[in-house]
């Protein structure tokens, strides 16, 4: 029979191998799923993974990977800090919304003034907004020992209501004939997070995501704070002996995650999305959790995982319209990725052994 045997130390090889195995298993299970739906399984998988990168219209899809991947990476990087230290921020979606609201609020307050300082102020406001929203679960945890998972998650719903209220009230476009939604920031040059190089879809959010990856890498590998984060996650007791202040760590991890998620929201609302609307948030904050784990909580891993996730979104849409695959099948496919990753993860900490049943 199969037996799991705990490894004395997590296998280094499997740590890096599991994401690849998980992707392969997802492809296999996905192909089977698509075959059951009566679609050509190989063509389906090919459409999802190949078409966005190498088809006739790849010149349009490739830059779109940046648009879709940047917010995922930016948010996931922030989340990974906390996750490494065992601090579970599940509410990035809410911090993303609040960041967008604060940033867009600054822009709309200055409208129609054209000035160079508006966009930097918006970025600042976006980061501050996300940070402040994350400080609620952080302070409650530090002060009263509340569970940050619950508090941060519940605040997502509060943020959604606030978003609806803003789209219908304070930030509503006065020239919108009473319809909900703010002015479109794409038509306000000083506030527009436009393409930096035409044709690349490279906007400030993409730049910020790359910078976040680099800084986090340095923080985790070269800075004492990064060491404390890793130590707290691996052995809280040892961390305390090493003089780590848990309260400060909580405030830092949640705050950074909130600020990055808030910036992601700001870059989205001022760029690709353009306006504050009731349905502005599309789940980046939750998908980023998958991205963080798929990337092994490692900055470079997260970058790759974000790109992969973006690929399945864009490829999934192509598969829907070209092959008639239902949207739900694509979502199941994406969900399987995390499922298989967690399943395969067992091999990092355990060895699988065949043993003969012993007669008692």
């Amino acid at each position, binding site marked *: 029979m199969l037996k799991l045997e705990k490894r004395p130390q997590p296998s280094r090889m499997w740590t890096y191998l599991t994401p690849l195995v998980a992707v392969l298993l997802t492809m296999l299970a996905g192909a089977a799923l698509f075959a059951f739906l009566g679609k050509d399984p190989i063509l389906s998988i090919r459409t999802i993974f190949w078409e966005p990168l190498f088809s006739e219209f790849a010149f*349009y899809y490739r830059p779109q990977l940046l648009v879709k991947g940047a917010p995922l990476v930016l948010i996931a990087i922030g989340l990974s800090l906390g996750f490494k230290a065992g601090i579970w921020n599940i509410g990035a979606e809410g911090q993303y919304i609040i960041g967008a609201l604060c940033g867009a609020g600054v822009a709309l307050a200055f409208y129609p003034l054209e000035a160079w300082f508006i966009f930097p102020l918006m970025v600042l406001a976006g980061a501050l907004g996300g940070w402040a929203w994350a400080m609620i679960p952080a302070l409650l945890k530090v002060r009263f020992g509340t569970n940050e998972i619950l508090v941060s998650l519940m605040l997502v719903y509060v943020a959604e209501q606030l978003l*609806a209220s803003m789209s*219908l009230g304070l930030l509503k476009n006065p020239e919108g004939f*009473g319809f909900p939604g703010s002015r479109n920031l794409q038509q306000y040059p000083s506030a527009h997070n436009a393409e930096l190089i*035409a*044709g690349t879809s490279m906007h400030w959010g993409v730049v910020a995501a790359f910078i976040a990856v680099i800084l986090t890498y340095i923080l985790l590998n070269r800075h004492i704070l990064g060491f404390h984060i890793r130590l707290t996650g691996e052995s809280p007791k040892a961390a305390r002996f090493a003089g780590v202040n848990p309260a400060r760590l909580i405030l830092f991890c949640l705050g950074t995650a909130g600020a990055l998620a808030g910036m992601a929201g700001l870059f989205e609302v001022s760029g690709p999305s353009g306006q504050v*609307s009731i349905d502005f948030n*599309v789940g980046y904050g939750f998908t980023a959790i998958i991205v963080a784990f798929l990337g092994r909580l490692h900055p470079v891993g997260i970058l790759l995982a974000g790109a992969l996730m973006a690929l399945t979104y864009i490829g999934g*849409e192509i598969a829907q*319209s070209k092959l008639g695959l239902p949207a739900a099948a694509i979502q199941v496919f994406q969900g399987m990725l995390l499922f298989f990753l967690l399943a395969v993860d067992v091999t990092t900490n355990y060895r699988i052994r065949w043993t003969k049943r012993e007669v008692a």
Partner: protein
Amino acid sequence: MQFTKLLATAAVALGLATTAMAQDKTKVGFVYVGPVGDGGWTYEHNQGRLAVEEHFGDKVETVFVESVPEGPDAERVMTQMALEGADLIFTTSFGYMDPTINVAQKFPNVKFEHATGYKRADNVSTYSARFYEGRAIQGHIAGKMTKSNIVGYIGSYPIPEVIRGINSAFIHARKANPDVQFKIVWAYTWFDPAKEADAAKVLIEQGADVVLQHTDSTAPQAAAQAAGNVITFGQASDMGEYAPMPRVSSIIDNWAPYYIARTQAVIDGTWESTDTWDGIAPGMVGIGEISDAVPADVKAEALALKDAIAKGEYHPFTGPLNKQDGSAWLADGEVADDGTLLGMNFYVEGIEGDIPQ
């Protein structure tokens, strides 16, 4: 803008390619906000798509993408369809308005049709249905049928479209029954069975024995069925599986004739940017079979109301009508103009509560 040029070149190249191919096949794309199996809004748009396929057979190919979030994702899906050679694209949610305009600018040879919006361009038309005509009939039945005199209403978003429906239903419920009160719950979603079911339960607990919905799933119907003695109306789709109780009638969106006509116009090369707002008369708004749970006299009155609206003898917003704050809106016999109706952001007199801001 290099990118725009690139896209435009591709579009022109495709335009040439598709004109060359136009003799055999016209490609029509549909972008849906919900899943095609929602049993409501998206379901009916998809029925329209299937009707196009059936009507034109091999001459037309249709493609669709479902559950597309409003925003950059919608923009990408539309661009993708245009790149893949679509000649006509229907974008079927209000929130697709700015994305539709953006993509239409990049593809001047592709025709776009945006449902329920107000922004048009040379290659962008808008279309919507006068659902408030159907709401008048629902309101009448609701006013006659309620025993608790409390009618529950599940609103999606407080936008003019939805507020217009509430007002129309309320005016006609009050005409049928002067004691009737409306309780309104805002779900802030078009499609979320769990939230819709919760909203229905809250309304029923507060004494509502009629539940109207402006959301797309059948969850409120199921909640009403479980509660017993509560009546509902199918929304966007007939929801006939819940007849005769709780579903006593329905408003059915019938997009098929419009979709077929517009596709034909593209094939003929006669397509022009238009603004369409049709109601019961041309068949864009259908009234589902009124079930036996409704007494014969009420049913007859409801059908008479439907005929009067269809013939143009009666407009659901006819004065005297006051706004909620008591100020005069329409004088005796005066009929509301389309501009006011399209931007409606106030309740009529008698409705309690505020429109969320």
